[in-house]
């Protein structure tokens, strides 16, 4: 679980950038409230961009719907591993973001037999709280005028490394490697040909390559 700390540090840096950028378009109270209630970096950065461009309410809500579609897939992939009741799952759901999904899946894969459910849930909760606090602290620093621009480049490098590491942990069969490579190529193609759909490309590609064929 200590491996969540580099991701949390990177999230704090991006939280600072978000806080610094958002306070100008929505004010300090709403900037802090947005991180407290929404906890979604991709969506919050998109909202700031839209508000900065003068967007009205409907585009904001539509953007939230579209960008959040990926949570349905992430949640569906995690659901078979959960064993607790609906109330506990409802609490855990708040902490479902790309990074915590990765940590939970990786920890569940490393666990054996009956422990998979408990380990997956515990990891989602721990990594979720860690990343949530990091996002809030970063937002607070940025909204109050602090800056960590010097480390932005290093923080930006953590995410590809993190996701490559998580992909390697999620691979348990040779066919998974082929599917992962196919998804990467598909994502790059979508980003190049349909840049407006870039945010949805990872989940769409993940689902498309998961459907055909069997497992070897």
């Amino acid at each position, binding site marked *: 679980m200590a*491996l969540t700390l580099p991701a949390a540090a990177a999230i704090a840096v991006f939280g600072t950038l978000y806080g610094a950028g958002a306070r100008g378009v929505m004010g300090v109270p*709403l900037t802090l409230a*947005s991180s407290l*209630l*929404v906890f979604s970096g991709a*969506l919050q950065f998109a*909202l700031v961009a839209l508000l900065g461009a003068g967007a009205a309410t409907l585009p*904001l*809500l539509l953007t*939230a*719907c579209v960008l*959040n579609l990926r*949570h*349905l*897939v992430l*949640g*569906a*992939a995690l*659901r*078979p591993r959960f064993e607790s009741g609906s109330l506990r*799952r*409802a609490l*855990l*759901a*708040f902490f*479902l973001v790309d990074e915590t999904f*990765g940590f939970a*899946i990786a920890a569940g894969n490393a666990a054996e037999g009956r422990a998979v459910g408990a380990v997956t849930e515990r990891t989602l909760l721990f990594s979720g709280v860690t990343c949530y606090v990091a996002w809030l602290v970063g937002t607070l620093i940025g909204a109050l005028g602090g800056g960590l621009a010097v480390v932005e*480049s290093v923080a930006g*490098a*953590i995410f*590809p*490394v*993190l*996701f*490559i*590491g*998580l992909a*390697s*942990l*999620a*691979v348990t069969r040779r066919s998974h490697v082929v*599917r*992962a*490579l196919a*998804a*990467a190529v598909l*994502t*790059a193609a979508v980003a*190049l040909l349909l*840049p407006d759909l*870039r*945010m949805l490309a*990872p989940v769409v*590609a*993940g*689902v498309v*390559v*998961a*459907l055909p064929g069997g497992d070897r």
Partner: protein
Amino acid sequence: MSPVVLVAIALITYGSRAAAVVLLPRPSPRFETILGRIPAPIFASLATATLLSDGGSLIGGPTLGAAVGALVVSPARSLLVCLIGGAVGYALSALFR
């Protein structure tokens, strides 16, 4: 943006997270098999997405070096080793830039 819109966006976001985790019944074994194939491609796709600029071109510099470093050591199937590989790749790229 008003506080009401913000609350609506927060509800949409939480609803999307809870929909599958809370409301869906446990999937059938066949569907579970398909769901089990999803994580690796999604992570590979997310890694790819973080390496692309807004225009879809590959970003360069130390970030790409970090990704290459992590990719080289990824057969070790260890997150810690990938982080170390990424750090080495980042440092080498920054050094020879």
